[in-house]
Structures are given as structure tokens and as C-alpha cells.
């Protein structure tokens, strides 16, 4: 049994890292908003999904314009991902303006803001479904593929107890782009004026506003950055996995939130780590659950795993692996 698990390990690592990076970037969107507003932004998973659809929309557009043959795939990809990120970023800002800011102004209870975000999430899902179904006749869309060259890591010949791992060229793209986004964000938050303002607002909104920081502007920037990253990840997801539907954001969103909690909510590096860890655990479970339980439980329970991790973390270490315990002021 152990041998079987070890054999599959290289493939599990490749798949787990891919998924993990996707979770990591989406988790950042949750953690940034939560850090500043203490709001679980249920719509964030759907921003990710919208990004995937906008990206595939652009790809279809480019194909119909005949640009694909004349331009290198990498350039097309860059144009698409940047455009999609800008649009989803703008959507994030708009959503904050319309749906969350009025509540903040009148100091509404948190419950109300949560409910609003659930509503926004539903609206996005159905709008995307409507447009996709209207344009293509089906809300499940198979995206055009850009990077589908398959590579094989020939690890078996060096270390015979491993099986070979396979991946597509899109895997490299996902890896490189997410790493660039993560490093870029880390620099943004820690080294720039806006990043500093963001951290100040997260720590103490009132004091920050006294220090001539425009809190509303900072919140808008946060939503823009988080949503742009989410949308860009959606594009990567579309390229990597090919098939998308309007409901992918829901489950993925919960898992990314789990990742954010795992890393300590409000902690950006923690979210990166939590995402990677969750991706690896999930892929490991999907590959080995059946073997480990002697066939009693199969990979259909892999989603359950993420929820159980979420519940366990919240009970035993609610501040996450890297967060600090907070104390409510009385």
C-alpha cells in the first residue's frame, strides 16, 4: 500500500502544486478583504469564476478575429489575462461601492453585509450563466486551449520507486504566473505607499483615517487588487482545466477561504501557504483515499476533507497557523 502511495507521489505533487497555487491566489482575495473589513466576501469565488469566463470570451473573440494564428500564444495569453484582471478588478470595486459601502456608512450589523455578499454571488452566477448560455447554447463552456503540449518527468529511470509524472505546458504557465503575482503582491503590500496604507487600515481604521489616509480609497484599492488577482487566477484555471461552468466559484471559493483561515485570516503570506497546503492535501486525498481506507471511501469525499480541515482549524487554532490571536475589546 505504501509502495502504491509513493509511486503516485510525483503526480500528486504536480497536481497538488497546480491546484494549491490557484487556491493561494484566491485565498489572498478573501484574506485581504477580511483583514480590512472583517467581512467574508462570498462573492469573491464568483469573481474568480467570472474571470475564467471573461478570459475564455476573449480567447473566442481572438479566434473569431483570426488573431490566434498571427500572434504567439504567450502574447495572446498575456493580453487576455491582463484584460480579464482589469475587468474583474473593476467589478470588485463596483461591487464594494454598490453593495458594501452603504452598509458600512450606516454601521449595519455584520450579518447584513454577509447576506449582501451572498446575494451578489448569486447575481454574478446567474448573469454569467445567462450570457454563456445565450452565446454558446450551454452554460458549461469548453475553453480553447493555448498550452497543451504534454511533458513527462522521467523520474522513474532515476528513482525506480516513483512513477513518472505528466503535466501540460499550461502547468508551467500557471506556476510562473501565480508566483509572479504572489511576489508582486507581497512587494506591493510591504513596500509601496498603498500597501502601507492598507496595512494601517487593517490594523486600526479610525486611527488610519486620522492619519490622513483616505480609508474608502484604500478599501477600493484592496478590492481592486484582490478581485484582479482572483480574475487572473480564473483565467489560469480555465487554461489548466479546460472546462468551466458558472458554479465553479462556489466550491473553490469555500476551499480558498479554508486556505485563508488555515494560514491565519488577514495574513497574506499565511494565505499563500494555506492554499498550497490545501491543494496538496486535496490531491493526496483524491489519489490515495481509496487505497488508504481499503476501498471504503473514494475520491468523492475529497471535498469533504477541505470542510473538515476548516472546522478543525476553527475549533483548535482559530487564529490559523500563522495568525495572532485577537482579543475583543470590552
Amino acid at each position: 500500500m505504501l509502495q502504491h502511495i509513493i509511486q503516485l507521489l510525483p503526480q500528486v505533487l504536480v497536481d497538488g502544486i497546480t491546484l494549491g497555487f490557484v487556491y493561494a491566489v484566491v485565498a489572498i482575495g478573501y484574506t485581504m478583504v477580511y483583514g480590512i473589513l472583517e467581512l467574508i466576501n462570498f462573492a469573491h469565488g464568483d469573481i474568480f469564476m467570472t474571470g475564467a469566463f471573461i478570459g475564455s470570451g476573449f480567447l473566442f473573440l481572438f479566434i473569431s478575429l483570426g488573431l490566434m494564428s498571427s500572434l504567439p500564444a504567450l502574447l495572446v495569453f498575456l493580453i487576455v489575462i491582463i484584460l480579464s484582471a482589469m475587468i474583474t478588478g473593476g467589478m470588485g470595486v463596483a461591487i464594494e461601492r454598490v453593495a458594501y459601502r452603504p452598509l458600512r456608512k450606516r454601521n449595519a450589523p455584520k450579518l447584513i453585509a454577509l447576506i449582501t455578499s451572498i446575494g451578489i454571488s448569486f447575481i454574478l452566477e446567474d448573469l454569467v450563466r445567462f450570457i454563456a448560455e445565450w452565446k454558446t447554447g450551454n452554460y458549461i463552456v469548453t475553453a480553447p486551449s493555448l498550452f497543451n503540449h504534454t511533458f513527462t518527468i522521467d523520474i522513474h529511470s532515476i528513482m525506480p520507486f516513483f512513477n513518472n509524472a505528466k503535466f501540460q505546458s499550461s502547468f508551467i504557465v500557471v506556476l510562473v504566473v501565480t508566483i509572479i503575482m504572489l511576489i508582486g503582491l507581497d512587494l506591493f503590500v510591504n513596500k509601496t505607499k498603498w500597501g502601507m496604507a492598507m496595512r494601517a487600515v487593517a490594523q486600526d481604521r479610525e486611527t488610519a483615517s486620522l492619519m490622513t489616509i483616505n480609508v474608502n480609497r484604500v478599501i477600493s484599492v484592496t478590492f481592486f487588487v484582490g478581485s484582479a488577482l482572483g480574475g487572473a487566477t480564473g483565467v489560469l484555471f480555465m487554461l489548466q482545466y479546460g472546462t468551466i461552468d458558472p458554479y465553479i466559484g462556489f466550491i473553490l471559493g469555500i476551499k480558498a477561504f479554508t486556505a485563508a483561515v488555515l494560514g491565519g485570516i488577514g495574513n497574506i503570506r499565511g494565505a499563500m501557504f494555506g492554499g498550497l497546503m490545501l491543494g496538496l492535501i486535496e490531491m493526496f486525498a483524491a489519489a490515495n483515499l481509496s487505497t488508504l481506507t481499503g476501498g471504503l471511501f473514494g475520491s468523492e469525499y475529497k471535498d469533504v476533507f477541505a470542510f473538515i480541515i476548516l472546522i478543525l482549524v476553527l475549533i483548535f487554532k482559530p487564529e490559523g497557523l500563522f495568525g495572532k490571536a485577537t482579543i475583543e475589546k470590552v
Partner: protein
Amino acid sequence: MVKEWFHKFSQSSRAQLFFIITYVLVTCLGLYLLEDSASAIFPFLLVLLSLLILYYMKINVKLKWAIGFIIIAVMIPLSASQGSNFQAFMDVGTLVLIYVAMSLGLNIVVGFAGLLDLGFIAFFAVGAYTYGIFGSKQANHFMPFGHYPLPGDTFWIFIFVGAIIAAIFGILLGIPVLRVRGDYLAIVTLGFGEIIRIVFNNMDHPINITNGSMGISQIQPPRIFGYPIDTPSEFYYVALFIFILVIYVVKHLENSKLGRSWKAVRDNEIAAQAMGIPLVKTKLAAFAIGASFSGMMGTVFAAKQMFVDATSFTYLESTMILVMVILGGMGSVPGVILGAAVVIILNNQVLTDLSNWMTSLSTAGILNVPDALSPSKMQRFIFGILLVVFALYRTQGLIPHKNKKVDAERLKREAAAEPPYGNSEAKTNLEGSDS
């Protein structure tokens, strides 16, 4: 002039009584006569509207309840009973009652105790599977003794078994979850709802308990005195029975010690604890009692459909119940009843009718509406809009909650008869109450 007349009207309970009786009789007659036509929905809705009018009337409360009961239990079934749409109407009526009871359950959790539960449908699923498994051959797969399906006469026991098992699930969920911070609760309950659905969908192995994604079929119809209950109009009365039970429980708990504790925890956890209210226990009570309503209606649902599978218990369903509560007004019992009725009628009657109408227009070539925009597919959009609009612009819902007022004059008189507040009687007065 009109204002004056209206004022007079609102002062005279006899005039109002006369009005409501006339209104009910006329609309019921309309329903009776139009029952076979396609527009029967309009008198049907007008009859239901009488309940809302009744709510706003200034007449004796007991009389109000009595009239309401007669409308629901006698007038509606009677006047709808003459046409081909009878069972369809009763089916919608049953669904309304099922969902009203569930949204009253969720209202305890969200509205009274202030805990956002996004996996509420799980308890409905637990109730439905409880009767589904034992009311069909399914239980033979794993029960070491007994012969299944159990006869339909046991259904009446299963209503309460379903309630108890759902309550136990509520407590099992609550014990770990209620320790987490308030805003995490939403996502944990959402996760719990999904876990329940996934597990029910896969429990055909290693032991076949739920028959997995195939679902459980051939569930026994309930029987009473040997007479089987298998039409919507009969289930309507089963649902009505549970509905009355639920209303009774909610109305009596709302302003009791427990109801006050729930609202105290909602308004300010720290102050509530400082006043001696145990947080976890109080929240667990809300979870358990809310869940039990759902569990009861789950058994009715299973018996009515004669089939259960996991697809009926998705996140969409949980959110739909939440929409009912938010639309009607969190914490407001009449509001939640209205909210549930509006959503169900919208979802099962109005949207379907609109879709059919639009399809007929399309086929006639008058209007070309893309199939994607068909109203019956727009549930999520409509629910989303309702949630956002009500959260932003009318947080208190259609019928806002009103705190129950005490008769201050009477209290003043009674207090005057006793010695003023002070130590000597502070110690004896309340403790004397159990003698």
C-alpha cells in the same frame, strides 16, 4: 374624506369583520367558478391575500386566528376542489406550508439568535432520509432485524423521530461550531450542509444506507386508520397540522425566558453572558429547535414525493429559505410566513407560468426570448436581487418585527399595591413564585 372614512373603518371591528368575510366569500367564489380556466391563479392569489389583510385588521386576536384557520383549512381547499387544477393548487399549498415551517425554524436561528446558518437544508434532508430509509425497502440493506418498509401508520411517529434526529444533528453540528467566532459560523454551516449532501449522495458503500445517487424510491404513503394519504390535498392537511404545531411553539417561545435569551445573545454576546446567560447552551437550543422544524417537514416531504435523493438538498435550497426570512423580516413571525409564501408561489407558480407564457409567445413568433432567459431558470438571479435589495434598503423586511409591549398601566397598578423596590422583598418576591 376618504381618510376619515378609513379611520372610522379601522375603529369599527364589526365593519372590518364584515369586510373580511365578504372578501373571502367573493374571492373564494371567484376561485370556485374560474377553477378550470388558465387564469385560476388570480383568484387563488386573492384568496391568499385575505390572510395578509386579516393580519392588518384591528380585531380581537383570537378571532383573527380563528378566521385565519377557517380560510386555510376550509375555504381554500373547498373552493379549489371543483376543478382540474385542484391537486396542483393543493400541491403548492403544501409546499408553502412546508417552507413556512422551515423558514420559521431558520428564523429562530438567524432572526432570534442572530446566527447565520447557510446549511439549514441539511436538517430537512435528515428528516427526509429518516422516513425515506425506514418507510421503504432501503432499511433491509443494513438493519439486522425487522422487516421493511414499515407500514404507513408509523409515519406519524416518524414526524417526531425526524424532528428528534434533526435536532440531534443540530446539536452535533453546534457543539464544535458554536465555539467559533460569529462570522465564521456562516461558512462552517455552509460546509456542513455540503458535507451532509455529499455523504448522503455516497453512502451506498461500504454499507448501503442511503442508496447513494440512485436515491430511495417507493416510499410508503402515510396511513391513518387504514386509509392511505397519497394526494396533495391530503398531504396539505398533514403539513397544516405540523404548521400549527410550529406556530404554537414559535409564538410561545418568542417571548419566554428562552426567547429573550436568544435575542440577548444576538444583540450583545458579552452583556448576555454577564447577565448569566450561557452562550453555547442558548445557541444550541436555537439550532436544535430550528432544526427540528426542518426535520419534521422533511418526513412530510419524503412521504409526499415518495422518493428522496441528495439533489433536493443543495446550497440553493438553503439560500432560498434564507431569502424567505430576509424578505419577510428577520425575527418577525408574520413577516417570515409572508416571505416564505411569496417565494414559494413566485418560484413554483408565477415563474413557471411566466416561462410557459413566454415560450408560447416564442412559438407563436410574436416575441423571441432566448431560452437562457426563461424566468424559471432565473431563480438565483431573483434570489440574489432580493437579498441585496432587502439587505441594503429594507433590512427589516416586508413586515418588520415589533417587540411585544407590556401593559404598563396594569404593571403600574400592581406595583403600587406592593412595597417599593428594595432588599427585603427583592429576596422574597421572586422566590415566592414557585410556591
